[in-house]
């Protein structure tokens, strides 16, 4: 096609370097390998860019992505998959904050995702370690407040694990806490605010589109002060028509798929652990946690991993993990 050079009727010689580049790159095969992974990432990005996307979605989705890399994508070499898992951990370590992990613990929808990543998700700490660090930061020197938050968190996790998470289409997690969080009053105050925080700066990026309406190449002599006011009026007027974003929030299909994937992976790991008599990869973090902190001990006492989960190994049909991955990769 390149040699035919139908772009130009008079024609010109295609340089050899172009043929060489195309031959070396083999774009068709590399696109076929990378497309499923990229599709997931782009869907995740779109989900995170929603205005009302809760902060908990960050670690929830990325945990699901890690599970998908470990259990799916057979066309990707093993070295590439492990490299990508390491990159997820590195990116989170660079740009994250322990409060983001605490938000994951506070979202009942992602209850299973906190068991999904057995290793250190961020640097040398486990998810539980980051959760504890976040509570320490929030509480500061106030021991009574810290103890109240820890007590509430233990009660909340017990409740959610015994209910096996939240299925279907639950409301925005901040709304869930307002509706059902009365039993944990101190944590409720923190959770409703933490889960309302934005997880991306997509709002800033979107506002730049509006600037291009106000100030363009053909209309560029307006004074800065006038540009700023008109920019603010245009953008804010539109946003005022949709202030009820949390109430209108609907969980994205991608989040549901990720949780379904994690659910199967966690249950399969639990089944493997039972069959082999030893913990398998992907076992719940709390089971093997050696942080030594008191509420991890409580988690362990409660058997927060497989005892509370509704899914049993027998519930999973052979090949179910691959099936879930295929669902994730579809369209």
């Amino acid at each position, binding site marked *: 096609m390149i040699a035919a050079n139908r772009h130009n009727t008079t024609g010109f010689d295609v340089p050899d370097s172009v043929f060489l580049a195309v031959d070396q790159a083999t774009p068709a095969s590399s*696109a076929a390998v990378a497309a499923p992974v990229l599709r997931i990432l782009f869907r995740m990005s779109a989900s995170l860019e929603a205005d*009302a996307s809760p902060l908990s979605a960050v670690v929830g989705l990325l945990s699901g992505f890690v599970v998908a890399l470990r259990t799916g994508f057979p066309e990707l070499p093993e070295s590439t998959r492990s490299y990508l898992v390491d990159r997820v951990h590195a990116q989170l370590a660079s740009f994250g904050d322990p409060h983001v992990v605490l938000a994951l613990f506070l979202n009942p929808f992602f209850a299973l995702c906190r068991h999904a990543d057995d290793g250190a998700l961020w640097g040398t700490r486990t998810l539980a370690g980051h959760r504890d660090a976040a509570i320490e930061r929030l509480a500061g020197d106030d021991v009574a407040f810290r103890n109240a938050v820890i007590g509430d968190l233990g009660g909340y996790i017990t409740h959610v694990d015994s209910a096996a998470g939240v299925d279907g289409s639950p409301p925005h997690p*901040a709304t869930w806490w307002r509706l059902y969080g009365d039993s944990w009053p101190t944590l409720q105050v923190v959770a409703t605010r933490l889960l309302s925080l934005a997880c991306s700066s997509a709002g800033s990026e979107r506002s730049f589109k509006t600037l291009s309406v106000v100030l363009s190449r053909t209309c560029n002599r307006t004074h800065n002060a006038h540009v700023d006011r008109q920019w603010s009026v245009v953008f804010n007027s539109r946003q005022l028509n949709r202030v009820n974003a949390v109430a209108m929030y609907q969980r994205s299909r991608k989040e549901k798929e990720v949780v379904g994937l994690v659910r199967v992976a966690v249950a399969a790991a639990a089944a493997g652990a039972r069959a082999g008599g030893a913990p398998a990869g992907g076992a719940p973090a709390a089971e093997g946690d050696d942080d030594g902190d008191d509420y991890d001990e409580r988690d362990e006492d409660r058997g927060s991993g497989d005892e509370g989960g509704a899914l049993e190994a027998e519930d999973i049909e052979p090949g179910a993990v691959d099936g879930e991955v295929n669902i994730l990769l579809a369209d």
Partner: protein
Amino acid sequence: MEVNRRLRLSCAAPGCSYHARVANITRATAHLLACPLAKHTWPGLAAALSPRRLSDNKPPPSYAEIATWAEQCAALMFQSGLAFGTFDNPRWRAFFLNISGGRFSGPGDCRAVGGSLLQSVFDRVFAQVLAVVAAHHGRTLTCDGITDANPRGAYNVIACAPVPFIMSVFRLGVNLSTAENLLNGLVSSLPQPLTEPQPVSALLRGRAIPSARLDALLGSPFWATVTDNASNMVLMRNKAVESGLCIMAYGCFSHVVNLLAEDVSKQSGLHLGIKSAVTVFE
């Protein structure tokens, strides 16, 4: 008609030799209203060209009503991205007079639209925005920069509640975009109520245990600062936490996912394919 490659407006009434030296619609209209030959030729012309008279049943609008109409019209202009002087010409004024029965001639000239009307619309919208943002607990602050069409740098300051609203825009001018300058610009451009600790009521605290630390958290102007991952922005958001403007700071996770996508394309060799495709099309 065209004379010496320039458009001229001439009176088409038989026997009239009027032609305007420049293509001026207003002067041509004034001639048609005064020209006896035109009136004789087209009897309904004067009624068609004159602004419609007010109905006897409707009282003339008050100045306050006309000001309200002008502000509404200007607000629609701003929201549509129209230039301030869009309706500042005789045709549009005649059109507005025609459809309003001679009651409203448009929002005014470009100075009025870009001056007092822009300020009043901005004040009205911003008051609503402040009310929404102040009522939301757990606000996020985001800041990002852009080079505009001129090209000059501008930084927007967005409060997410959780719907994003522009709180302010600041420019650094000749100053370097260091973390200190960015934070100073950000804090100084924010409205005063959003830079100070908020009062905490018992209703806000709910049934939580009484705690000075919890009150400090609830009273914090912002809970989080989110920026992209440029080094100056990372430093700025960490300084924002140190200064007490917010409780926590983290990077934009949409950017993180994009970086992961870049890693995937590099690992799979797809980026070589993309580069070669660009080479072919260039």
